[in-house]
């Protein structure tokens, strides 16, 4: 057990180093921040001085070593665009992204699972066919298009919901929340639908196909033969057994929701980390880009670690096999 966790953590560290290296080396190709930071009229000497001040003149390996040392301490330097420490900026933006991701993921689960069960049970009903066809839209339409459509309908035509921003937020210590104000809640609706729609349709289709699979198995037939109610068979036996892959996918998708919130955040001017990252790219704001990539890498590594550990606890076979292997 302990060895298993250690191996996993070691692997995570290697992944993080690689992510850090990629993030760091990318910066040699995104452009010259000095050209953007100094006025066009600056002389070569000014540019050189700035380059030295930022440490951009040092050898690559030295720059990378410094980067890793600082990154481990959470120090990513100062944003070239906003003149503020990157860590402070990320901490400020994190709540917005996490709240959005949380609402989008909840939406996907709370709507996706029941719809999946429904279409799985009534697979020939016209309503199921309609839902399945509609779900194709969620899978195939690009996020920004969905966002723009929702804005057009609910903000421009109907005027019910805001087209951008997070509304009023309430500060709870370092955390700012949009859950506690009417405008904040209203502002969450369109972005979370936009962000969660893909996951919603994915979960729905996954649950449906798993349900169809499980309903064909022998133990369901036996359950029916025992005279259990439909309700007990469908929810007590069938749905329960479909949830293992759903949990796995949801866990992994949570990472994607956070990482791919970039598009949704840009469309809705949602002040989260993704928007910060997009603006950083345009300004060649290297420290922010580095920090963001590393943070997203870390989130994925952590989620994978947790999922792996969950398997270990959930699936008894894993434990037995491993114990056996060690015995020989």
């Amino acid at each position, binding site marked *: 057990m302990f060895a298993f966790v250690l191996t996993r953590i070691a692997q995570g560290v290697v992944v993080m180093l690689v992510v850090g290296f990629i993030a760091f080396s990318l910066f040699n190709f995104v452009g010259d921040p000095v050209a*953007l930071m100094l*006025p066009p009229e600056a002389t070569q000497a000014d540019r050189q001085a700035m380059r030295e001040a930022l440490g951009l003149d040092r050898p690559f390996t030295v720059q990378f070593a410094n980067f890793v040392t600082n990154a481990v301490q959470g120090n990513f330097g100062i944003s070239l*665009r*906003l003149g503020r420490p990157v860590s402070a900026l990320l901490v400020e933006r994190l709540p917005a992204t996490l709240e959005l991701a949380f609402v989008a993921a909840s939406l996907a689960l709370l709507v996706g699972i029941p719809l999946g069960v429904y279409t799985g049970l009534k697979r020939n009903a016209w309503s199921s066919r309609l839902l399945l066809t509609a779900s194709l839209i969620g899978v195939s339409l690009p996020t920004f298009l969905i966002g*723009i459509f929702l804005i057009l309908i609910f903000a*421009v035509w109907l005027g019910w919901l805001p087209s951008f*921003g997070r509304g009023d937020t309430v500060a709870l210590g370092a955390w700012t929340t949009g859950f506690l104000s009417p405008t904040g809640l209203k502002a969450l609706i369109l972005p979370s639908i936009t962000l969660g729609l893909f996951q919603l349709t994915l979960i729905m289709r996954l649950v449906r196909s798993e349900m169809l699979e499980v309903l064909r198995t022998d133990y369901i037939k036996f359950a029916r033969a025992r005279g259990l109610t439909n309700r007990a068979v469908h929810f007590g036996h069938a749905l329960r057994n479909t949830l293992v892959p759903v949990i796995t996918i949801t866990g992994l998708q949570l990472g994607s929701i956070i990482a791919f919130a970039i598009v949704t955040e840009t469309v809705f001017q949602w*002040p989260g980390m993704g928007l910060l990252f997009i603006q950083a790219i345009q300004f060649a704001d290297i420290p922010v880009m580095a920090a963001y990539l590393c943070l997203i890498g870390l989130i994925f590594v952590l989620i994978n670690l947790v999922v792996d550990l969950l398997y270990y606890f959930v699936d008894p076979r894993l434990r037995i096999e491993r114990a056996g292997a060690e015995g020989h």
Partner: protein
Amino acid sequence: MPATTLIRAATLSVLLAFGLAAEAKTLRWSSQGDILTMDPHAQNEGLNNTVSDHIYEPLVTRDKNLKIEPALAVSWKSINPTTMQFKLRPNVKFHDGTPFTADDVVFSIERALAPTSNFSPYMQGITGARKVDDLTVEIVTKGPNPVLLPQLTEVRMMSRAWANKHGVQRPQDYKNKEETYAVRNANGTGPFILKSREADVKTVLVLNSNWWGKMEGNVNEVVYQPIKQDGTRVAALLSGEVDFVLDPPPQDIPRLKKDPKVRILEGNENRTIFFGFDQWRDELQYSNVKGKNPFKDVRVRQAFQLAIDVNALRTQVMRGLSIPTGVMFAPQSDGYDKSLDVAAKPDRARAKKLLADAGYPNGFEVTLDCPNNRYINDEKLCQAVAAMLAQIDVKVKLNAMPRATYFAKIQKHDTSFYMLGWGVPTFDSLYALQSLMRTIGQGGDGNFNLGKYSNPKVDAAIDAMKTEMDLAKRRALAKEALTIHKNDVGHIPLHHQVIPWAMRSSVSAVHRADNRMHAKWVKID
């Protein structure tokens, strides 16, 4: 029933009372990017200067027509060729209540001169300031400086006491890992006071009721919210969530013009787009021509100019949002001459003949470097020009890049043929002439002369302009430099950019060529 009526009546009267009291309005506006900092000397960037202008004030400023008018200085006179004396406006107070005096001017000039200041272009030739008495200050220059006043319009005044109190005596230095107090706090003398600032989300300014000037508009609160996505920004305007958009996307302008809820205000921008050539290498770098550089031959440059139809670019690429030109800077600049501002007439036959005379009867190949996110339709313009040049058998390879990589490349003179847009923040032609066509030298000479165009006669005229205090003589010198440059086809000017502003039809604003909206002139019905 009567009760409801009573309530209705009461509500109505309350609303009326508010309506009458609330003569003043909130202006909610937006553009793509956010303000970078509140420090008035840290970032010389368009939007940043626009917002700084609401909070901080310079000694002299520009009016609706970009003419210079008094601001914190009420009058000025030249004491000797290198000293200008300013009388300061009495009884002006900073937002924190401290009075504005000569000490603050001396301090602010020194702060703008600091190495970490981003405003060095406006400080060129200025060596410092000295206090004469509380309301008199002298600004000292290295030599006679005919553009001192235009330069000073961008040098905003801070309070010395406030800066000392908060340790912001110098503009932010990127070497330090900490943000400074002035990044998110402000204390100026201007018509609006910074109320709150949340980067990338919202910046709120409120009216300064103690402001010395006269408010022509009725705005008492200004809310700036950046919206990066073009579609969302326009949607926010249409849904009434914002009142004013500084940068509506060009492709939406025709549609917005038809919407009765929206007003579009158009005017030329103080920015001119042109092409430049490598005129110094002995062998053209990115071309199939070996052993020589065709752009050194004026006939080749002429042929290129004759092949490019700027009016077609206006209608086909810019959707009418450009003003074709024959000069290198906007009409608002001093030194502009209408007689020279004639766009070249395209003449393909002559262009081909000139190419043949120069020894390229079958044309040649060259790479055109072009930005793709800096100027309006920049990449599309380059594509169209490549097609036009193909008609005189010049094969253009287009190399389009984002601004971050583009400018790093061309500023190293690593280009054979490039696009550039130049604005003149001083509204004085010297700024453009010196940067773009003066032979590379000291103090800003030729710092954006990326193809190294060089003509001693042009240099002489530009150098004379630097110290010539007589307006008529300066204008003659500018005309001389421009005429020679035009005959040399040193660059190929395309057009002045046109910048549309979009606003709710209830809003009226004053459009300026420097793309700066000022809420003091905004009226909301």
